[in-house]
């Protein structure tokens, strides 16, 4: 079991000799794509989870707040459930994909994950403190939506810089725009902005990722493999 006799034949002969350069380059590209799929989270999965969570959760808030001005309690639970679900999926997906890797990327990725957790812990305490200090439900709602978008926006901008992902950076910028729109929309439309501009923004990214993948696959050899892989 320890040694395979077929692998000990003279170098440069055997299976490789029959392949032409185009085929070899295609094989390299496919292998590198498979390696990235096995070690990096799939942006489409994460964007879809968060897009749906925001869309469903904030639409529930908006639709029940339209008549009374205050969202129904059940809508609050729907939103909370959506956020918890998307968080769980993100953690499980990211941990599964990156398991078996270690080094600089794994360290940066872990710190990045913990940053989200810490930021939203502080967020929860801040919103609670505003209520204790006498902020109205409306002020709290505007602050909660605006702060959530600012945190998400800044962390995506940071992710774009860390991982050199332009798409991440773009959605980060868009989330800051959403924060401003949600703040000026006022009650109850702030929730509608969160659902459509925020959730919708994530869902647009699913489509963008899909198009980029399809294009990369059909372009055959080239582009991503030059220089021997990521940041080589």
């Amino acid at each position, binding site marked *: 079991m320890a040694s395979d006799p077929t*692998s000990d034949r003279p170098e440069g002969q055997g299976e490789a000799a029959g392949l032409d350069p185009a085929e*070899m380059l295609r094989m390299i590209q496919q*292998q590198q794509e498979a390696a990235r799929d096995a070690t990096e989270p799939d942006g489409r999965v994460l964007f879809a989870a968060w897009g749906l969570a925001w869309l469903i959760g904030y639409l529930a808030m908006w639709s029940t707040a339209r008549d009374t001005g205050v969202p129904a309690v059940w809508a609050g639970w729907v939103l909370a459930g959506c956020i918890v679900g998307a968080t769980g999926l993100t953690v499980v997906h990211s941990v599964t994909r990156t398991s078996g890797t270690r080094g600089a990327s794994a360290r940066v990725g872990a710190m990045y994950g913990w940053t989200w957790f810490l930021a939203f812990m502080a967020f929860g305490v801040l919103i609670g403190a505003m209520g204790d200090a006498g902020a109205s439900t409306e002020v709290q709602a505007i602050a909660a939506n605006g702060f959530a978008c600012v945190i998400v926006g800044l962390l995506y901008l940071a992710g774009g810089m860390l991982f050199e992902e332009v798409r991440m950076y773009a959605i980060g910028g868009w989330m800051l725009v959403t924060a401003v729109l949600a703040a000026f929309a006022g009650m109850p439309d702030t929730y509608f902005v969160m659902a459509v501009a925020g959730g919708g923004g994530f869902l647009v990214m699913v489509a963008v990722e899909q198009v980029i993948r399809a294009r990369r696959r059909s372009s055959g050899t080239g582009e991503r493999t030059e220089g021997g892989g*990521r*940041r080589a």
Partner: protein
Amino acid sequence: MPEELDPVIHAPARLRVVASLAALGPGDELAFPKLRKLLDMTAGNLSTHLRKLEDAGYVHVTKTHEGRTPATYLALTPTGRTAFADYQAALMDLLKGAQG
């Protein structure tokens, strides 16, 4: 002109190993079982190819312990990364030569 292509990399199994490790960021390592699953090779076969790549100085093998279980991590060395880039450039040249 196979003599222009790096013989260490110019074997499908080793090319796939090197291509996979090159997809990681510099300074990143992959666990042996994960690489084995990714390549769908037997442990013995993969070990044999890794030894050749290690002997050539292309792959760095780290043996460590996670708790009580031994674990092996693999990474491309800077030499390996350069060799892979050169190999790809050589393939590109061959392709251009064939087309032109």
